[in-house]
C-alpha cells in the first residue's frame, strides 16, 4: 500500500495508453513496487501543460520537444517508448511509386512545416532527386484526422501522417511509398531511433529513483506481453477504437514493429546526428537556439 | 352605438366660401377628403373610442377639443393610417393624400440635424432645393438649422416639427396640440403661417387643441369630444371668414359656447 505513485498524463485511446492498460491489467506496477496512476487528457498539448503545471509526473512526447525545452532551460528528460514512425501513403492505384513522383502533387502533411517527417522527406527529395518539394509540390498542412478524411475522398494525392493514422490508411487499402524509417535509412542514419518516449523532470527522477526504475521495468514487461500475445490485443480492442479488423491488425503490427530493441550509445549518437540534421533543416523554429543536442536530453539512467 | 347627430342650432355667424380655400362646394357636399368611422377601438380590452364618426370635406379645418385622455390622439393615429387595429373604416374618397403630421411631442430624430429632420420627409428631389431652409426661416430657426434637436429649447423643437409638417405640402394635415409651449406672440405667428399656407395650398386639417380660443380662431368646425370611450358629443360650425375673426369675436363666441346648455360644453372650461 505504501508503493510510490507515478502519475502519467496520457491521451485517452492514444497508443501509449494501450501499454499502460496492460501494466494495470496484469498488475505489473504492483509487482514492480509502484502504483501507476493515469490522468486522461484529450490532446498532446494538454499533456505538456499538465507536466509543466506539475499535475503529472510523466507524459509521452517526442525527444525533439524535450531537446528544445532543455535548450530553453527546462530540466526535462526522456526515455524511449516507441520507434514506430509515420509513412507517406498513396491510394492503391496511384501512379506515385517513389519520392520522385511527388512532383506537382498535393501532399497532405500532418502537423506543421517543421514536422520531423516532413523535414526528412524534403531532405530526401532534395538529396536524392534534386527536388524542392516546397516549390515543386503543394504541401497541405492540417490536423491528422482531417488528412485521413481528405485522403479517402481523393482530394490529396499523398498523405504523410503519424503512424496510427497511417495504419488506418493502410488498412483502408492504401499503399506505403516510404516510411519515415526508410527516409532515415536513405539519409544515412542507420540505427533505429525511438521518436516517442516518456518525458519527466530530472528533479522528479532524482527524487524518485526507485519509482522510475520500477516503471521502466513494468513498461518493458508490458511490451514483452504485447509483442507475444495476440489475446492481449483482443482485450485491448475497445481502447484501440479500430474501425475494422484490418485496422486493428495494422495497429497491432506497427506497434510491435516499433518496440525499441536497443537503447545504447549507438542509438543516442544516431539521435544526435538526426538532431543535427533537423537543426539544419528546421532551423531555429524547430530547435530553438540549441544547434546541437543538449546534454541530458536522454535520461542516462536507462539503457538496454 | 353611433353619435346621434342632432341638428345643431344654426350658428349666428354668416357662411362664407373663402373659409374653405379649396372651395369645391360646401363642406357637407362634394367628395370627402376624409371619412373616418370608428365603431370601436380598444387597447388591451379597454374601449377608448366608440361610435366616432368624422367626415371632413376637402379643405375643411376640423378642430377637436375634449378632456385629457379621451382618445383624440388615438383617433389621429388611426386617421394617419398608423393603427389599423380598430373596428371601423377609413377612407379618403380617392387616392391617399400626402400626409403632414405634428405629433403631440415633436418626435424629431435626435441624430439628424434640424435641417435634415425637415428635409428627410420630403421627396428626394426636393431635399436640397431650399424648401427645408425656407420653412425653417419662416419659423425663425435659420440660426439653428445645423444643430441637433437635443440642443433646442422645447418651443424651438416644436417649431421644427411644424416646419416639417408644412414642408411636405400636405393634402391632409394632422395636428396634435401643435402650438403648446410657445409664447403667445410666437404661437400667433405660427397660426398666421398655418393660415397663409392653407390659403396657398389648401389641405384638409384635423386639429387637436385644448385652447378653445385657438379653435374658434382657426376652425371651420369644432368637434367637442365626449370623455372616453369617446365620440363626437357636439359640433359647432363656424361660418365667419377666418380673416374677420378678431379677438373680440373670439371672446364672444367662446362665451356663447361656454354658456350653452348642452352638457358637452361644460367640459370646455
Amino acid at each position, binding site marked *: 500500500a505504501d508503493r510510490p505513485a507515478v502519475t502519467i498524463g496520457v491521451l485517452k485511446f492514444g497508443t501509449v495508453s494501450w501499454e499502460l492498460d496492460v501494466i494495470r491489467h496484469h498488475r505489473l506496477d504492483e509487482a514492480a513496487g509502484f502504483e501507476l496512476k493515469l490522468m*486522461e*487528457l*484529450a490532446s498532446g498539448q494538454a499533456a505538456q501543460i*499538465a507536466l509543466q*503545471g*506539475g*499535475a503529472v509526473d510523466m507524459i509521452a512526447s517526442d525527444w525533439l520537444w524535450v531537446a528544445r525545452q532543455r535548450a530553453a532551460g527546462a530540466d526535462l528528460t526522456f526515455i524511449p517508448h516507441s520507434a514506430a514512425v509515420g509513412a507517406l501513403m498513396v491510394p492503391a492505384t496511384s501512379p506515385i511509386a517513389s519520392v520522385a513522383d511527388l512532383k506537382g502533387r498535393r501532399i497532405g502533411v500532418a502537423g506543421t512545416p517543421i514536422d520531423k517527417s516532413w523535414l526528412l522527406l524534403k531532405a530526401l527529395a532534395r538529396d536524392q532527386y534534386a527536388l524542392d518539394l516546397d516549390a515543386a509540390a503543394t504541401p497541405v498542412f492540417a490536423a491528422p*484526422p482531417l488528412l485521413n478524411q481528405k485522403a479517402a475522398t481523393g482530394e490529396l494525392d499523398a498523405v504523410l501522417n503519424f503512424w496510427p493514422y497511417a495504419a488506418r490508411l493502410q488498412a483502408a487499402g492504401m499503399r506505403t511509398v516510404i516510411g519515415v524509417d526508410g527516409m532515415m535509412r536513405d539519409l544515412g542514419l542507420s540505427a533505429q531511433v525511438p521518436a516517442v518516449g516518456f518525458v519527466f523532470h530530472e528533479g522528479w527522477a532524482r527524487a524518485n529513483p526507485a519509482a522510475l526504475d520500477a516503471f521502466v521495468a513494468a513498461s518493458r514487461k508490458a511490451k514483452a506481453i504485447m509483442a507475444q500475445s495476440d489475446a492481449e490485443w483482443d482485450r485491448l480492442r475497445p481502447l484501440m477504437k479500430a474501425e475494422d479488423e484490418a485496422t486493428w491488425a495494422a495497429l497491432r503490427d506497427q506497434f510491435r514493429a516499433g518496440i525499441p530493441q536497443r537503447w545504447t550509445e549507438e542509438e543516442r549518437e544516431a539521435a544526435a546526428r538526426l538532431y543535427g540534421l533537423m537543426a539544419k533543416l528546421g532551423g531555429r523554429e524547430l530547435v530553438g537556439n540549441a544547434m546541437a543536442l543538449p546534454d541530458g536530453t536522454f535520461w542516462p539512467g536507462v539503457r538496454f | 352605438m353611433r353619435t346621434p347627430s342632432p341638428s345643431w342650432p344654426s350658428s349666428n355667424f354668416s357662411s362664407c366660401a373663402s373659409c374653405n380655400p379649396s372651395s369645391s362646394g360646401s363642406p357637407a357636399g362634394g367628395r370627402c377628403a376624409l371619412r373616418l368611422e370608428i365603431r370601436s377601438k380598444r387597447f388591451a380590452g379597454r374601449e377608448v373610442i366608440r361610435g366616432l364618426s368624422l367626415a371632413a370635406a376637402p379643405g375643411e379645418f376640423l378642430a377637436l377639443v375634449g378632456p385629457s385622455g379621451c382618445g383624440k390622439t388615438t383617433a389621429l393615429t388611426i386617421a394617419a393610417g398608423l393603427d*389599423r387595429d380598430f373596428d371601423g373604416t377609413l377612407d379618403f374618397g380617392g387616392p391617399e393624400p400626402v400626409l403632414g403630421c405634428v405629433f403631440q411631442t415633436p418626435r424629431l430624430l435626435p441624430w439628424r440635424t434640424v435641417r435634415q429632420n425637415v428635409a428627410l420627409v420630403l421627396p428626394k428631389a426636393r431635399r436640397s432645393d431650399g424648401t427645408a431652409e425656407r420653412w425653417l426661416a419662416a419659423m425663425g430657426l435659420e440660426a439653428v438649422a445645423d444643430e441637433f434637436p437635443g440642443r433646442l429649447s422645447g418651443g424651438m423643437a416644436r417649431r421644427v416639427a411644424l416646419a416639417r409638417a408644412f414642408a411636405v405640402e400636405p393634402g391632409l394635415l394632422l395636428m396634435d396640440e401643435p402650438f403648446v409651449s410657445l409664447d403667445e406672440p410666437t404661437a400667433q405667428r405660427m397660426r398666421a403661417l398655418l393660415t397663409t399656407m392653407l390659403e396657398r395650398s389648401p389641405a384638409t386639417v384635423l386639429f387637436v387643441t385644448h385652447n378653445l380660443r385657438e379653435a374658434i380662431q382657426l376652425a371651420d368646425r369644432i368637434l367637442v369630444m365626449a370623455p372616453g370611450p369617446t365620440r363626437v358629443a357636439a359640433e359647432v360650425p363656424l361660418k365667419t371668414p377666418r380673416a374677420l375673426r378678431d379677438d373680440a369675436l373670439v371672446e364672444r363666441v367662446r362665451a356663447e359656447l361656454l354658456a350653452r346648455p348642452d352638457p358637452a360644453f361644460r367640459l370646455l372650461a
Partner: protein
Amino acid sequence: MRWRRLAPVLSLALLVGLWAVAAELAASRSLPGPAAVLSVLIREAADGALFHHLGITLARMAAAFVIAMSIGSALGILLGRSATADRLFGLWLTVFLNIPALVVIVLAYVWFGLTEAAAVGAVAVNKIPNVVVVLREGTRAIDEQYVEMARTFRMARSDVLRHVLLPQLTPYFAAAARSGLALIWKIVLVVELLGRSDGVGFQIHLYFQMFDVAGILAYTVAFVAVVQLLELCVLQPVEQRLTRWRPVRAEA
C-alpha cells in the same frame, strides 16, 4: 395563437429535415444524419457518459458565466459612465479582449495547476472583456434625461442604478448573456481539451481524433437542447417581463 405554438415545431422539423437531406446528399462519414446522431446520443445517454460530461461542463459554464457577467457588467458600466476610467483602461480592454484563449488557458493551468478553479477562471477571463465591451456601449447610450430626473429628485445611487440605468441596459444584458453563453461554451471546450479529464470538450476532442463526427454532433445536440431549454424557460420569460413596458408593435 395556433400559429404561435406551431412555429417552433415547424422550425425544428424544417431544420432536422434540411439536415437529413444534406446528410443524405453528402453520404459521408463527415456529416452523419439525424438518425445516426440520435443513436449515438441514446447510447451515450444509456451508459451515463452523456449526463456525466454534460453535467460537468454545464457546472463549469455556470460558474464562469456568473463570474464573467457580474465582473464584466460592473466594469462595463464603470467605463461607460466615466470618461476618465475609459481613457485609462480602454487600452487594457483591447489587450484582454484579444489575448488568444490559448494563452490565458495555458497560463492559468501552469500557474494554478490543472484545477477546476484554473479552468473556470480561464473561461471567465476570456469572457469578461466581451461583457465589458457590450455593456460599455450600452451605458454610453443611456438616455440622460432620466438620469437628470433622478438627480433632481436626489435619488440614491443604488436606486439610480436599479431603476434608471439597469432597465435601459436590458437589451445589452440580453445580448451579452446570449452571445456569452455561446462564447463560454466554445472556450470551455478548449479548456477541457487542454487540461481536464472530463467534460464535453474532452469528449468531443476524443471523437475528433477518431473523426467520429456523429459523436461530436451528439454532444452538440445535447448541449444545444439544454441552451434552448434555458432560452425558453429562463431567458425569454425574464426578458419578456423586463421589456413588458415597451409598446406592442404591429408587425412591420
